[in-house]
């Protein structure tokens, strides 16, 4: 007997991850470009992330083992952090001691649904969650706008 099985695409999975992280914000949009073009940009972390995220000055992959990477990210104001990264087609989650980031993409019609997640891992995140979500939204919208321009 073939029972129906439900699947969850990467964007839906990122929504789940965002729901499980206190204070996480999630920005989501449909881009008018095919998945391959969108993900080629998003997955090119070293070259593209500093262009997409204003608070990232540089990103360097220092270790790679299949889909598991380690990246050093330098931000502005002398901020520097090491991130564990999981990167595969349509899915990217990165985490340092203080910050979580995520990206997901899935084909939708002739375009691509793309989602971006951000969260802090510092004490006090849970009570400050509503404020953090509000503050994070412009960051997410900014990344989506710049990504839209990059893949146009």
């Amino acid at each position, binding site marked *: 007997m*073939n029972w129906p099985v439900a699947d969850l695409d990467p964007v839906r999975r990122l929504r789940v991850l965002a729901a499980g992280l206190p204070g996480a914000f999630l920005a989501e949009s449909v881009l008018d470009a095919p998945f391959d073009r969108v993900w080629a940009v998003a997955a090119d972390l070293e070259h593209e992330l500093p262009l997409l995220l204003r608070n990232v000055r540089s990103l360097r992959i220092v270790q790679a083992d299949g889909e598991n990477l380690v990246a050093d990210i330098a931000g502005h104001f002398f901020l520097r952090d090491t991130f564990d990264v999981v990167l595969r087609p349509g899915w990217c989650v990165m985490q340092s001691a203080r910050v979580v980031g995520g990206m997901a993409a899935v084909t939708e019609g002739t375009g691509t649904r793309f989602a971006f997640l951000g969260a802090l891992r510092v004490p006090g995140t849970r009570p400050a969650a509503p404020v953090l979500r509000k503050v994070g939204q412009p960051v997410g919208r900014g990344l989506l706008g710049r990504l839209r321009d990059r893949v146009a």
Partner: protein
Amino acid sequence: MPEPDRTELVCAAQRGDAIAMQELLGLLTPYVGRLCGPIALDDGADATQEALIAIFRNLGQLTEPAAVFGWARAIAVREAVRVARRSRRVVPAELADVPAAGDAELSVDIRDVLDRLAPEHRAILVLRDVEGLDEQTVGELLKVPAGTVKSRLFRARRSFRKEWDR
């Protein structure tokens, strides 16, 4: 994944480790999708997403990390029934025309049968025939007496055979 590793993974996810959370999500998604698919049918993806959101939001309340799949099962079935009822696409009916696990009739497309059932009845079938739970456990999960579970299944399978032999 060996149980000690899985327990460690759940504990890390409970501490808010996002890398562990996404790995746990990868483990739970196919399982939750197998439960939500037959209960929520066309709304299976929505039900799976909502079930997993409930699971990850409440992960801190799981006191036995080794029992994560059993704990997730109860949430998944509850959410799948809720989402299916909300969609109002169903025509509630008694469990009718349903084969027993192992019957020759199982080759019939189960989707046609499930379409005619209420979500609560699909849940009984999934827990009994996909998960292999006994009537007592199914009744506890769905908060109905075990006798009700048994009689519904019995009637359903008898009805199904009548249709099949016609």
